[in-house]
C-alpha cells in the first residue's frame, strides 16, 4: 500500500478510517467536539446522516450492525445519556456487523453543560473501549475497533476528548478502502429479542465476552504500549492525550500507555507495576483507571481532588505527579461569546427581559440569552428540558408568578427532544396554560450549522422532506400556534406574547427568521433559497 500522509484532526481521522472500512451507516446528532466526524465522512463520499437525536441515531446504527453491516454512531458525551436506553440492551444482544459508538467528551467544558467522564459507560454498559491519544491513533483505533467488534460481536466505545477530536496531526492513511459487505437476513430470535427468557442467558454471555475481552486485551498487539524511560522508579499509567502530556512532564518516568481501557489488561498492568517503585495514574476526569487498577490489587497513588476538574496539560501533569494539591491560579478570563449582532434571537430576549418573564431555556446559541444585555434566562439543563421544567414550575409557583413562566427552545433542539414536552403540555396542561417559544433559525447554529429534519435539507444540502413545525404542534392539539418574524413583525410580536401570557391556553409561538450565518453558508455553497 502506498503511503498516504495527511494532516487531520482526530475527528477527521475517524471519518477517514470509517470510510476505509466501508461503513454502511454513519449516523449521529451534532455536538461539539464530535460534529466533524460525520461532516467529514459525508464530504469524502461516505454514508452519513443526522438523526433527530442520539437515541434514534444509536438505534439506526444498531440496526445496521444487527443486519450484518458496519456502522459508526457519533455524539458528544451528554448525547450518550440520551442513547443509553438502547445501548444498555444492545450490549446484551451484541451485533453481527462491526459497530462503533464515538463518545466525544469535553473535560474542561469548552462548550458543554457538564464534564461527565463517559469511560464509566464502558464499565456500566459492559462494552470494550478504545481511547486514541492523537489523530494517527484515531485512525488506527477506528480500524481496530471494527476488528474487535466483529471478533467479539460487541459494539465498541471509541472514547475521545476535545483535545483529541480537535487537535491536528500527521496521519498515515494506510488502509485500502474496502467494499461494503452485503448481509443476508438470518433470524436469531434467542439472541436478538430481549424478553426476560432470552435476556437472562444473554446477560451471562455478555459477562463471559467481557472476561474473554480482558484476556484478549492482555495479549493484544498495537493497542497498549510501554514508553518513556527504560528503567525508572516512577511508573505512570495513562491513556488518551494525557499520555503525551506525561511524556513531556516526566521524561524520567516509565509510562504504560493504555489504548484499550476497558476491560483492562490485568496482567500487563500488574507486570508493569512490579518493575517500578511507585505507580501514578495520569487521567482527566474521574478516577476511572485509578480505582479499577486498585481493584486489581495494584497500589496506586491517589490524585489530588483538583485534578478531577478540567483538562490536563503538561504543567498540570507535573503538579499532579508532585502530589501538589494547592489550588491553582484561575486562568485569565477570555472574551465570552455573545449572540451575533443581527441575530434574530436578540428580539425575543429583549422582549422576555422587558416583560419580566421567568425563562426556562434550552441548549443552543440562544442559551447566550442568559448574558447581558438580556439577562433573560433563568434555567437551563439539557436538550429539550425547557418545556418539561417550565411545566413543573407552573405547578409550583403562585398564579401570578406562573403566568410569567415561558419555555425557549431552538428548532433543532425541538426536533431532538422538544416534541414530547409539547405532548406533556397538552396532556397535563397547567391551570394557567403555558407558552413555548420555538426559535426557528432553520439550522443547528451553535455546533456549526448542521441541517435537521425541519430545515428541508440533508447533510449534503440536497432537498429533503421537511417536518413543518407549526403543523406538528397543531396536530398535537396545542390551542394556539403562531408563526412570526421577530424583526419585520416586532410590534405584533410583543402584543401576541402579552395576550398568550394572560390566557390559560397552551400556546406555541414559532419565531422564524433564518440565522444570518447559515444564510452566508448556503449562499457560499450555492444552495440558498
Amino acid at each position, binding site marked *: 500500500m502506498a503511503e498516504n500522509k495527511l494532516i487531520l484532526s482526530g475527528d477527521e481521522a475517524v471519518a477517514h478510517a470509517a470510510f476505509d472500512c466501508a461503513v454502511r451507516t454513519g449516523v449521529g446528532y451534532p455536538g461539539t467536539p464530535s460534529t466533524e466526524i460525520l461532516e467529514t465522512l459525508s464530504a469524502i463520499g461516505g454514508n452519513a446522516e443526522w438523526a433527530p437525536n442520539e437515541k434514534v441515531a444509536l438505534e439506526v446504527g444498531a440496526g445496521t450492525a444487527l443486519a450484518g453491516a458496519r456502522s459508526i454512531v457519533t455524539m458528544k458525551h451528554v448525547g450518550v445519556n440520551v442513547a443509553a436506553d438502547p445501548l444498555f440492551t444492545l450490549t446484551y444482544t451484541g451485533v453481527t456487523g462491526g459497530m462503533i459508538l464515538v463518545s466525544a467528551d469535553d473535560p474542561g467544558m*469548552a462548550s458543554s453543560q457538564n464534564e461527565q467522564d463517559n469511560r464509566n459507560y464502558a464499565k456500566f454498559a459492559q462494552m470494550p473501549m478504545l481511547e486514541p491519544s492523537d489523530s494517527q491513533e484515531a485512525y488506527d483505533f477506528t480500524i481496530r475497533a471494527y476488528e474487535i467488534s466483529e471478533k467479539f460481536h460487541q459494539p465498541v466505545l471509541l472514547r475521545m476528548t476535545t483535545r483529541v477530536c480537535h487537535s491536528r*496531526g500527521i496521519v498515515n492513511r494506510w488502509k485500502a478502502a474496502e467494499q461494503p459487505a452485503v448481509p443476508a437476513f438470518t433470524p436469531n430470535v434467542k439472541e436478538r429479542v430481549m424478553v426476560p427468557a432470552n435476556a437472562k442467558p444473554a446477560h451471562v454471555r455478555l459477562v463471559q465476552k467481557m472476561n474473554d475481552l480482558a484476556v484478549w486485551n492482555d495479549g493484544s498487539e498495537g493497542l497498549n504500549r510501554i514508553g518513556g524511560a527504560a528503567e525508572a522508579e516512577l511508573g505512570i499509567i495513562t491513556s488518551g492525550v494525557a499520555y*503525551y502530556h506525561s511524556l513531556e512532564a516526566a521524561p524520567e518516568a516509565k509510562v504504560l500507555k493504555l489504548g484499550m481501557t476497558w476491560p483492562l489488561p490485568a496482567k500487563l498492568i500488574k507486570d508493569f507495576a512490579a518493575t517500578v517503585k511507585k505507580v501514578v495514574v495520569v487521567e482527566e476526569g474521574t478516577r476511572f483507571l485509578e480505582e479499577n487498577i486498585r481493584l486489581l490489587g495494584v497500589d496506586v497513588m491517589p490524585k489530588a481532588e483538583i485534578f478531577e476538574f478540567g483538562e490536563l496539560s503538561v504543567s498540570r501533569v507535573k503538579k499532579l505527579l508532585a502530589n501538589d494539591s494547592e489550588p491553582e491560579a484561575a486562568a485569565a478570563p477570555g472574551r465570552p461569546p455573545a449572540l451575533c449582532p443581527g441575530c434574530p434571537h436578540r428580539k425575543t430576549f429583549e422582549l422576555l427581559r422587558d416583560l419580566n418573564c421567568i425563562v426556562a431555556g434550552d441548549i443552543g446559541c440562544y442559551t447566550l440569552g442568559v448574558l447581558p444585555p438580556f439577562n433573560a434566562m433563568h434555567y437551563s439543563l439539557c436538550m429539550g428540558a425547557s418545556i418539561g421544567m417550565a411545566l413543573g414550575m407552573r405547578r409550583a409557583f403562585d398564579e401570578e408568578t406562573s403566568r410569567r413562566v415561558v419555555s425557549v427552545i431552538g428548532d433543532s433542539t425541538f426536533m431532538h427532544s422538544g416534541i414530547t414536552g409539547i405532548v406533556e403540555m397538552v396532556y397535563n396542561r397547567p391551570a394557567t396554560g403555558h407558552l413555548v417559544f420555538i426559535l426557528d433559525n432553520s439550522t443547528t447554529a451553535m455546533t456549526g450549522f448542521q441541517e435537521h429534519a425541519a430545515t428541508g435539507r440533508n447533510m449534503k444540502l440536497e432537498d429533503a422532506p421537511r417536518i413543518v413545525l407549526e403543523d406538528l404542534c397543531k396536530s398535537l392539539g396545542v390551542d394556539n400556534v403562531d408563526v412570526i418574524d421577530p424583526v419585520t413583525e416586532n410590534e405584533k410580536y410583543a402584543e401576541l406574547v402579552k395576550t398568550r401570557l394572560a390566557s390559560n391556553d397552551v400556546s406555541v409561538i414559532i419565531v422564524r427568521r433564518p440565522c444570518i450565518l447559515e444564510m452566508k453558508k448556503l449562499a457560499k455553497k450555492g444552495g440558498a433559497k
Partner: protein
Amino acid sequence: MKNGKVTNVMFAGIGGQGIIRASDMLTEAAFRMGCDVKKSELHGMSQRGGSVSSDVRFGEKVASPMIPAGEADYMIAVSADQIEVCAAFLNENTVIIRDEDIPEEYRASRMMNIAMLGVLNRYLAFPEGLWIDLIRENFSGTVAEENITAFRRAFEAK
C-alpha cells in the same frame, strides 16, 4: 528546527478573525517542511465572538498538542486584548507579533491573519513559494492574490 527543539507558535484572537485558518496554514507549512507537527485549538462557542486560541508545535518529534506554560516561542496576537488572556504561555523571550508589526493598510483588515504569518516567516524563513502555494489553496481568485501581496509586504516591512 530539526535539532530536537520544538517550535511553539500560539495564535490568539476572537471568533471570525481567521485564527483557525492561519494556524491550519502554519501546520501544513511545517508538515511540508518535513517536520512532525501538532496543532490544538479550542472552538465551539468561539463562533459567537468569544476568545479563540490555537497552538501549533513543530519540530523533529512533538508530544503534547498543547504548548506548555511559559514555552511559547512566538505569539500571533491577532487581537491585542488576548495577549493578557494567554500570558501564562509567554516568557521573556517570546516574540509577540502585533498589529503594529504589519503594514498599516492591513491592520484591522480581513488579511491581518495572513499579514501576521508574513511577519512570522521573517523568523521561520520557510520558502516563500510554500506560503504562496498554501495561500492559493486556501483562497481563490483576487482574494488569493491580495493575500499574497499582504503576506509579502508584511514579510518585507522591516
